[in-house]
């Protein structure tokens, strides 16, 4: 890895517990993780390992009890809702397992939504959204509603939407979980291309083949990092 690229993500001694009745469930037990710009990291673990909690904290959808979290040199702490919304919009792009497109908005409108929340003008918004739709190869589908698209197309719209705000970090929560193998590899191919262009991407997955398409695998178990290794990336293009 190129050590001169700046630090994208720095996590130190992160703890998080959830109250369950009178007891408290210690989910993350001191996570240390740093990710450089341009990395493609898979976070693996069985359910209950804390991988989703970690992603939520990185995505500012949840706050840690203890520990430090620095994102692109900005310490993330004591966030109020408004600030969290602003940071999410500025720093982060989300890709979900179930796509989470807004059903009554067409592909173009879905992609331009984060730009709307950036306060961008309508015309500029549409131009930008169109550009990103073009990047995922869906220019012709711009006016279609999500239910007129296939699963792979939906996920590509979701990726275009995540890219539209030009985030520093892409967070993908089981991006291929709802897709068949062929389509999963298509999406992974696309994610790898984005990474080649320099995007930093974090993928939560429990599929080994998907994890092996990343450059680094972080394995979580019972709230601690068991293993953190750099791997030889399997290119998805060979399967497509």
């Amino acid at each position: 890895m190129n050590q001169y690229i700046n630090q994208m993500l720095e996590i130190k001694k992160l703890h998080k517990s959830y109250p369950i009745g009178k007891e408290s469930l210690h989910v993350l037990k001191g996570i240390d993780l740093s990710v450089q710009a341009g990395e493609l990291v898979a976070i693996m673990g069985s359910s209950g390992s804390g991988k989703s909690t970690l992603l939520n904290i990185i995505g500012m959808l949840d706050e840690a009890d203890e520990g430090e979290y620095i994102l692109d040199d900005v310490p993330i702490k004591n966030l109020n809702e408004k600030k969290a919304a602003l940071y999410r919009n500025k720093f982060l792009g989300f890709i979900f397992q179930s796509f989470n497109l807004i059903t009554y908005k067409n592909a173009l409108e879905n992609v331009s939504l984060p730009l709307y929340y950036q306060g961008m003008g309508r015309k500029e918004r549409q131009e930008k959204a169109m550009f990103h739709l073009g990047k995922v190869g869906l220019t012709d589908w711009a006016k279609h509603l999500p239910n007129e698209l296939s699963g792979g197309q939906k996920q590509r719209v979701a990726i275009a939407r995540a890219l539209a705000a030009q985030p520093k970090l892409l967070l993908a929560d089981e991006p291929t979980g709802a897709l068949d193998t062929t389509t999963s590899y298509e999406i992974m191919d696309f994610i790898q291309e984005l990474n080649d262009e320099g995007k930093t991407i974090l993928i939560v997955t429990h599929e080994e083949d998907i994890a092996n398409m990343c450059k680094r695998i972080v394995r979580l178990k019972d709230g601690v990092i068991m293993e953190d290794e750099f791997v030889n990336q399997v290119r998805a293009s060979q399967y497509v």
Partner: protein
Amino acid sequence: MFDLDLWREIFQSISKNKLRSLLSGFTVSFAILLFTLLFGIANGLENTFNSFFKDDAQNSIFIRPGKTTKPYKGFKTGRDIQFKNEDYDYLKENFGDKVQYITSRVYKNLTASYKNEKSSYSIRAVHPDHQYLEKTLVYDGRYISAKDLQESSKVVVIGKLVEEDLFTKTLALGKYINLGGIQYKVVGVYRDDGGDNEERMIYMPITTAQKIYGNNDYVDQINLTYNPAMDYDEALSFSTLLTKKLKDRFDISPKDQRAVRVRNMAEASKNVNLMTIVISGVVLFIGFGTLMAGVVGIANIMIFVVKERTKELGVRKALGASPRSIVMLIMLETILITSLAGYLGLLVGMGTLELIGDSLKYYFITDPSVSTNLIIGATVSLVLAGAIAGYIPAKRAARIKPIVALRDE
């Protein structure tokens, strides 16, 4: 601040979720519609009640002479009691402070004619105060004046329907009509809310009638209104006093119920007022209930709407929507829908009242209508209730962690 993009979002959300929008709109429309109809009909009932008593002043006392039914002070049973001008003067002199308006009446039935038109009418010969007692509304010319009485002028004030009967081609004012062979000048034309019969009367100065039709000073009836400052009990004791004094004056047995009849409207109008209050109370209660039902309905729908949109709101939050923009989105949509729907309900309600209003006369409902202010007030409160009902779940939705909203499947 007008945010075109925000409104675009709202319009899209409304038009793409028609069922949801229709549902919330329908609740509000229906509540306002019911409210309007209910209030309209209740007002109609009240109007009917009032119209029964609108004819005469509510503080009227009517005094009519009759026949004695008991012997007294050497007089036999069956004696006719006859009022005269001096009795009118007596009442006016002795009870002046308690009397507001007072008039005598002499009744006649005469045939009136103008050119070829001819018809028979009731004539009331009266004092000028009669106008206030009977609530006669002179809209053309003037009423009988004190000067007319002094000079026993041959003038008449005729009802609207008399004018319509006799004066087919011209206005009556200033023309002369023939009453039993004598020419009278029409000096006024009037309306009366008491109905058609009241508008088919002819009024003339009492002195004129006494001079021409009998050459005496007889009076058929004396009407007066008591001082409105008197309360109900005072009014009743006043009419009891009048009865007693008149019986003394005509040597009538205190136990004779027929010889002089004094009818006090205070009793009747007290009952009517009570009835009106009861009706208003019932209407207010039902109207308030309808409105509350509407509020509960819209509140329920708002909770449902927010629940249904939880996922969408979670996506919006993940994409950088601030909590405030989420709340605004929901609230403005609610306010827009409820305002439009409320307005629609208001229009339909008022239109219905207008359309069926006249056909309800048979059911004792006259001119059912509602004040616009009341209905707008009801609509505004429903819109506000919807906004508040929407605010709480919207606020909660805005606080919900996006990840929870997104996992919710």
